[in-house]
């Protein structure tokens, strides 16, 4: 064991960066919180658990920022190129020579960026939850689960080995399950958490088989080695993966598409998105953390991590691009019709992740070609800010009005001034109005699409107009429109703990766009100069404004225009309102096919045929014995005698044959 636990230092880092400890503590602090609160929370830490968890996460966030600063400004860049650094790694489980699960940490621009995003958003959510979840009976359990999630997500983004990533991938899935099912006594929450887990598990099957295929051809599970072997055209591993094909598609493409299915499940891409809207059954801060900013972008991150390999297989990239753009449009259409504010945000998340996905799909490798990659990561970064903000704002609204339905809301700007302003900033950001963060990242995505594939570009343009429309539909319905009936005494906006995250995230949503993202994150580690084209921005911005003004015209004041438009589009509106009947389709497949056509016959077959044969064999023996020997049967000892007789008979036979 000892030799295995030895930590392999691959690169000595500059003075002052005792990186090993800092890095290891980033995920371990939330884990410590999980263990501490999970084991002792209920008994000893009922009140202080929230503060404790928040402090642990604050330390994690500080360490992440410290790491990010160090990586981006001190030691990450060698000769103008950001390096992939593996500060340590140890063999966790050796399968065969060369193939092993190693637990390690990889530092490269995307993992460092994700460290910051995950720990920062998680910190905001912890802080917000202090007030939001106050008075819950299972307060410590809630923070324990948040800790488990944060640990798993940080582990996922730091993974240096594809199987290590799968390890944390599953842990992320289970923490999401636990948090969606937090209100375990509500049947709807139980159904939602099961659905989320099973749908993503189904997708993970693809990921797992994809890993098996990749490992088989690359002969390794280590990300760096794997990427090296599968991207150099002269490597025998690459040639083998290209040469062997199944159904006319190369093994490499198969492997990547399978891996992508896993990513699509976690990232709620069509048709594996059905769990995400239901996942809104969890507490709202959880939705902000898991189902908006972090876990759901794991699929994007996975594709980004394997992007060099993806770029070797244009068909696989096309799958990513078309799945992404279709999901973006599909979800945006549904979002326009939903009335539950969290569901609108859920579909909006799906749509925005679709943007990130197709941005990767239209990207190439190296230099200017890699614009889509940079844009996707940039959008991931800005989206985490404004979407977390939107969810936390929605949380404030729900906290105040005790309902998720838009019809119960309206005119809330008077009661919730801070929420109102921050929500507006987030809406402007997601709609791509300059100079808010979403504008910059979305422009880059559109530019990348424009350079690569006009069909995707035009669809994306329409979708971004729809985005502005449904977000402002939400905004005007909640904060303007009719006056909501506010019951007697209300408790305002929930105090400092709830306001601070809103304000900090709003600052992010407003200004994060000015970060020269291309300098830090690019396909090849070299700075990417993203040229800003004014004339190119005109169309998306105008479309966004058109969406906003349409929403204003329809929803700012109470009127019957929305109803009449819905009526005029009756068939389509109804289909979108019912989410294009995807749930019904799935229900049909699972209930009718899986349960009734496979499960039930299997159980019946076992009970009647297989077991029937055993009982039949027993009965036959009994009948024969009664007939021939007139024995009083039913005693096991007698069966034993028969067996013994048979044994002796066979023994005699053997002696006869081989003696």
């Amino acid at each position, binding site marked *: 064991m000892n030799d295995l636990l030895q930590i392999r230092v691959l690169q000595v880092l500059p003075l002052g960066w005792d990186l090993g400890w800092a890095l290891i503590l980033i995920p371990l602090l939330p884990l410590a919180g999980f263990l501490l609160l999970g084991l002792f929370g209920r008994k000893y830490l009922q009140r202080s658990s929230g503060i404790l968890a928040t402090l642990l996460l604050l330390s994690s966030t500080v360490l992440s920022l410290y790491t990010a600063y160090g990586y981006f400004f001190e030691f990450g860049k060698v000769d103008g190129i950001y390096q992939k650094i593996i500060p340590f790694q140890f063999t966790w489980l050796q*399968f065969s020579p060369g193939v092993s699960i190693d637990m390690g940490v990889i530092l490269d621009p995307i993992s460092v960026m994700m460290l910051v995003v995950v720990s920062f958003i998680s910190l905001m959510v912890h802080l917000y939850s202090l007030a939001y979840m106050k008075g819950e009976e299972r307060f410590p359990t809630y923070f324990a689960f948040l800790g488990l999630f944060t640990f798993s997500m940080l582990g996922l983004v730091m993974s240096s080995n594809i199987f290590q990533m799968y390890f944390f991938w599953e842990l992320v899935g289970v923490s999401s399950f636990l948090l969606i099912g937090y209100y375990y006594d509500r049947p709807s929450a139980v159904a939602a958490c*099961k659905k989320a887990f099973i749908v993503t598990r189904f997708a993970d099957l693809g990921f797992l088989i994809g890993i098996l295929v990749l490992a088989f051809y690359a002969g390794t599970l280590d990300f760096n080695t794997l990427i090296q072997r599968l991207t150099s055209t002269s490597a025998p591993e690459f040639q083998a993966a290209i040469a062997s094909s199944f159904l006319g598609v190369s093994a490499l493409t198969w492997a990547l598409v399978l891996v992508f299915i896993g990513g699509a499940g976690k990232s709620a891409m069509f048709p594996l998105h059905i769990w995400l809207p239901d996942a809104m059954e969890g507490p709202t801060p959880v939705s902000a953390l898991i189902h908006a900013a972090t876990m759901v972008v794991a699929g994007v991150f996975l594709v980004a991590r394997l992007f060099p390999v993806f770029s070797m297989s244009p068909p696989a990239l096309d799958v990513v691009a078309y799945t992404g753009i279709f999901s973006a449009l599909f979800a945006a259409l549904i979002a326009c019709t939903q009335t539950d504010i969290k569901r609108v945000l859920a579909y909006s998340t799906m749509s925005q992740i679709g943007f990130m996905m197709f941005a990767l799909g239209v990207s190439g490798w190296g230099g200017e070609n890699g614009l889509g990659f940079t844009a996707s990561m940039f959008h991931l970064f800005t989206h985490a800010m404004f979407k977390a903000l939107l969810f936390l704002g929605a949380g404030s609204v729900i906290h105040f009005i005790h309902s998720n339905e838009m019809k119960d809301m309206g005119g809330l700007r008077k009661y919730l001034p801070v929420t109102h302003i921050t929500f507006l900033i987030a809406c402007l950001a997601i709609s791509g109005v300059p100079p808010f963060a979403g504008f910059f990242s979305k422009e880059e995505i559109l530019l990348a699409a424009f350079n690569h594939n006009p069909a995707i570009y035009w669809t994306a343009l329409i979708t971004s107009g729809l985005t502005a429309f449904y977000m402002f539909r939400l905004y005007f319905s909640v904060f303007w429109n009719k006056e909501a009936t506010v019951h007697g005494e209300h408790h305002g906006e929930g105090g400092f703990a709830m306001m601070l995250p809103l304000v900090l995230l709003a600052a992010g949503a407003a200004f994060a766009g000015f970060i020269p993202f291309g300098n830090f994150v690019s396909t090849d580690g070299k700075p990417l100069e993203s040229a800003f084209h004014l004339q190119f921005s005109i169309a998306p911005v105008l479309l966004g404004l058109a969406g906003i003004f349409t929403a204003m015209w329809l929803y700012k004041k109470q009127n019957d225009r929305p109803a009449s438009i819905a009526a005029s589009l009756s068939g389509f509106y109804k289909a979108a309102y019912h989410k294009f009947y995807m749930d019904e389709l799935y229900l049909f497949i699972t209930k009718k096919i899986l349960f009734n056509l496979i*499960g039930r016959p299997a159980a019946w077959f076992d009970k009647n045929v297989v077991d029937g044969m055993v009982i039949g064999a027993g009965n036959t023996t009994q009948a024969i014995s009664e007939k021939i020997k007139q024995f009083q049967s039913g005693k096991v000892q007698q069966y034993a005698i028969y067996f013994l007789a048979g044994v002796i008979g066979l023994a005699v036979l053997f002696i006869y044959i081989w003696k």
Partner: protein
Amino acid sequence: MNLISLIGLPLLTAVAILLMRNPQQVKWTALIGATLQFALAFALLFTFRNERAAGNEAQMLFELQYNWFPSLHISFHLGVDGISVAMILLTAFVVIAGVLVSWNVTKMTKEFYFLLILLSFGAYGFFISLDLFILFFFLEIAVIPKYLLIGIWGSGKKENAANKLALMLMGGSALVLVGLLGVYFGSPERTFDLISLSQLHIPITVQKICFPLLFVGFGVFTALFPFHTWVPDGHSSAPTAGSMFLAGISMKLGGYGCLRVATYMMPDGAKEYANIIIVLSTIAILYGAFATMMQKDLKYINAYSSVSHCGFVLLGIGMLTKTAMTGAVMQMVSHGLMTALFFAVIGMIYERTHTRQVNEMGGLLKVMPFITTVLFIVGLCSLGLPGLSGFVAEMTILMGSWQQPDTFHRVATIAACMSIVVTAVYILRAIGQTAMGPIKAEFSNLTDAAWNEKLAAVILIAGIIAIGIAPFWLNDLVSPAADIIMHKVAGK
């Protein structure tokens, strides 16, 4: 380390139990005995590791040999390799947990504990035997108490279940015995010694006949499809500790036998029949999982899920790669711990709610946080959550299976992979209906686990987590031994 102590200790404990006068003394004697076994198993692990670290590369360590019956070539030959050590550790974990959860058995306490300890005696003996004759002797010792445990302390249609179980396990042992005799008479030299037999080249004709006899015979124990039907009935009628021993230990006797006796001794036979094994085990994996989906009784759920999980053990053996074989042993250990814990927690729930039907329960998380947390952990282990043992074992098997590059093996591996989704469906269904949802009024006053139950659960969970977060120690233990078996198969 003297291996006699491993069988001597349970034997002494069993005798001591017979001498005790009241149930209280019996229980404490059993617990002390089980604790000593536990300590002994760890002592074995550490001395074994030290020997290996000191460079002792012998295949079997701590060998002992007494010429017992020279005229029939029977010798009392004991020895352990990594696989045996892993199985002995598993047995020790299950025994101590089984003794703890049976703390409230009032009916014929002395006889109950006597049989439990006797069973562990048989199991240890089986895992350290290197002579086929005494191996078979210990196998039978481990089987017979089962019949009594179910027939006397069981519930439901217990006589029927006990008969079916005894019939099928006896049938399995009979096949084993025939196979062993076949090997004895068919090998070039008359001997029952496992190691010598493996070095002699048993003629291919003998292997072709005896391998299936032995494999199916042992396979019955480990729920080889279609000889698995004793599993659901046997488990559902057995008392809690009985189920734990049955699934945690007895089913592993079969897997160990398939590996150590059938495959190691007759590698050519293994190659001959490998594809059939793969087909049957893949069927068991998927079919067991789908059948589980339709079950409503918690014990049936775990029993059918055991069929599915034990299918992985046989799949790992049938794949004939070192990695898959290592995974098979890991899966035996993992499944043994997990399923024992699952049955223990089902017993705890049943004692309180007096039902095992999942649709009659709900919301138990509210009144029994400890027990339902254990249920969550064991369920998550069953569906292969990383950090728990099931993940490690199943992934090792799948990685090993994928090393076989032809379509047949690929299809079997993908089919086996699919079970992870079905497993998730039935586990979440069971947990969701039992622990979550609104609580029923009649259950709102139930109490949580008592000290003995908590201790049993904690011990088993510790084992599950120890494998789940640090699998390298188990891998180090098992994989050299699997390598030796694979060398035989590869004909080196």
